[in-house]
């Protein structure tokens, strides 16, 4: 298991929920929890993943997501069991939509 943490600069978001959770930790899937973070202009991500050695890909996937979404002021917790980047992006999108009440 790998434990990874990342921080990305991001535009502040306007949350409409205290927290949102999407997905289930199961083969090829993951859970994404978004809660309030410490820095309004940044996003902190903490990952537990069963797939070892993919830190650069996580970095790229998350940086891309952070570049396209106003994630500032959030903390993202991820428990992963080998989800592909496509599934990661999908779950991040679902969780973020819930967190912002449908506003993108």
């Amino acid at each position, binding site marked *: *298991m790998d434990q990874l943490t990342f921080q990305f600069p991001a535009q502040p978001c306007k949350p409409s929920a205290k927290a949102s959770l999407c997905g289930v930790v199961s083969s090829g899937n993951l859970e994404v929890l978004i809660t309030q973070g410490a820095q309004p202009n940044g996003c902190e991500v903490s990952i537990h993943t*069963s797939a070892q050695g993919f830190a650069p890909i996580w970095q790229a996937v998350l940086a891309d997501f952070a570049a396209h979404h106003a994630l500032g002021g959030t903390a993202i*917790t991820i428990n992963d069991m080998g989800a592909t980047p496509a599934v990661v992006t999908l779950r991040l999108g679902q969780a973020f939509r819930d967190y912002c009440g449908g506003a993108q």
Partner: protein
Amino acid sequence: MNLPQPSPPSRGPSFYEATARQRVNRLLDAQSFTEFLPPQGAHSSPHLALLGLPGALDDGVVIGSGTLGGKPVLIIAQEGQFLGGAVGEMHGAKIVGLLQRAVRDKPLAVLFLVDSGGVRLHEANAGLIALSEIMRAVLDTRAAGIPVFALIGGVCGAFGGMGIVSRLCSAILMSEQGRLALSGPEVIETVAGVEEFDSRDRALVWRVTGGKHRYLMGDCLALVEDDVEDFRQTTLALLAHWEETAPELHTLRAEQERLSQRCTQFCGLRDGLEVWAALGVPNPQQIPLLERDALVTLRQGLSL
């Protein structure tokens, strides 16, 4: 053969496919659910972490309170997709805590959405003890006059200790996709051989453990569609007239008689088809294809 006309399937949200969280939210009155020990602020199982496995923030079970038809209920929903919904230390303790809370808070009922293979092997001892505690807690809850309904229709069914727990509940509601048994077919196949139980023969697995068979045999009270809304409506209908009775010698005597009698009656049978034939079902091989309503009608016609 009297075939149904081609028809697109009903499009309600599938109970089988939904996650535990989706089941809870769709089963209870809208917006009424409050989760106890929600994922935010929770930590996942330290035992899994020790084994190098990622855990889930809810440890595979969602618990909380809400309303059903405006009445207060407590709810437990196991997540079958996470490690087979299996019971570990934290998972089990959440359920025990919820049931203790039921004894204290006296909700109208506890809804137990079972979706589990039983003990989580990664925490085997903790899981087994937790299951024993859940068994005792279910009986305590019922003894306090609060019904506990088991709803079975998820990907993992109810196996192992959770199969026992389900049968300790006041009533079981199952969809035909649901399975209820003790040992999983894979376990029996591994130990006793493929001739004893071919776990890849899924039609056989369902004829032995599936919702329709359990319903025909009276091991579950209600057969429902694989639709969260149907689970909701059936639960509401049952609760409307439910009276939870304290455990009595005579009821257990009656159950002892029922179980003994049927062991004699169906002794040596190994397939649902044989049992259904013995029950007097005219075309047993048609049972798997029957729609839910037709099966319910058929059962009402049997002298059980």
